[in-house]
């Protein structure tokens, strides 16, 4: 679906800015970690039950966007930037660990301090909500790509081929 240089950004940037639309028709943007694997026709974002507002917004209006613009910690040298607009679908089945093993494996590797949250019984009691996840699948419709990350320059509009 994406050219290799864009795929590298989506696969490696630790966060992206995920925007939904509120009931008052205002944009609401939060940093999240996205999940994508080559060959998938959608990008997955998860949100804990502790912060479900994104899901409520999507249930009213499925139009969303993702901006991958912060290369910190990613090891990607191009510092490119990509904005993706798409339609979101919420999987209302709550996922904890099962079905998200690869997601947690990567998250806990990228975010090592999170490994300590569940070491104690008290920690497990207090932060169990963090591991109760709703999955949001975003089907990209249009993208804009800044090759060097210079956001003052005009980006290239990308046609997304869902057949690949």
């Amino acid at each position, binding site marked *: 679906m994406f050219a290799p240089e864009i795929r590298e950004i989506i696969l490696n940037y*630790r966060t992206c800015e995920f925007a939904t639309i509120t009931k008052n028709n205002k944009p609401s943007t939060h*940093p999240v970690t996205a999940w994508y694997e080559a060959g998938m026709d959608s990008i997955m974002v998860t949100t804990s039950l502790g912060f479900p507002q994104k899901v409520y917004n999507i249930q009213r209006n499925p139009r969303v966007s993702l901006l991958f613009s912060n290369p910190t910690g990613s090891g990607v040298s191009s510092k490119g930037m990509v904005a993706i607009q798409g339609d979101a679908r919420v999987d209302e089945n709550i996922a904890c660990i099962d079905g998200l093993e690869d997601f947690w494996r990567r998250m806990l590797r990228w975010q090592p301090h999170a490994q300590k949250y*569940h070491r104690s019984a008290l920690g497990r009691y207090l932060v169990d909500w963090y591991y109760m996840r709703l999955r949001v699948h975003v089907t990209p419709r249009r993208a804009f790509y800044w090759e060097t990350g210079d956001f003052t320059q005009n980006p290239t509009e990308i046609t997304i081929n869902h057949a690949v």
Partner: protein
Amino acid sequence: MLFDDIAAILESYPNGVLTIIDEAGYPLSVRCQPRADQPQQRFYVRLPDNLPIQAGAASLLFHAHDEQLDNLRSVTVQGTLAKQEGQWLFQPEQIISGLGRSKFFEVIQDTLLTPRRNTKRYLQKHKLPRPIIPWDKLRKIVSEISDH
């Protein structure tokens, strides 16, 4: 006061993420570096010409993390975007706090009270029992990471 608070935010982040809603009704985000217009209490933003940006409700998100995805901090400014004499202007309306607040009660509220209350409400609304986290599976994943 609002303008001064945002000016202080601008000093602690190299740039921000402006989000608007385009003509097709999709949100669209782009990095930008707001420039303060103190007399008018608003901010200039320079945006690429070929993006489908239009005036209307907008938000500015500022966020950062370190190489280990730690020390997360964020703050959002809600407002409106308008075009005047060929320049884009962001008129702020409200600051919404985000990640990384440091006062004791704020930390408790952000990391425990609010998410636990939200979780309880979500489960009640959907008439769902509280899921039980299979901690042993999570421990196994952590162990695998440590081994590598």
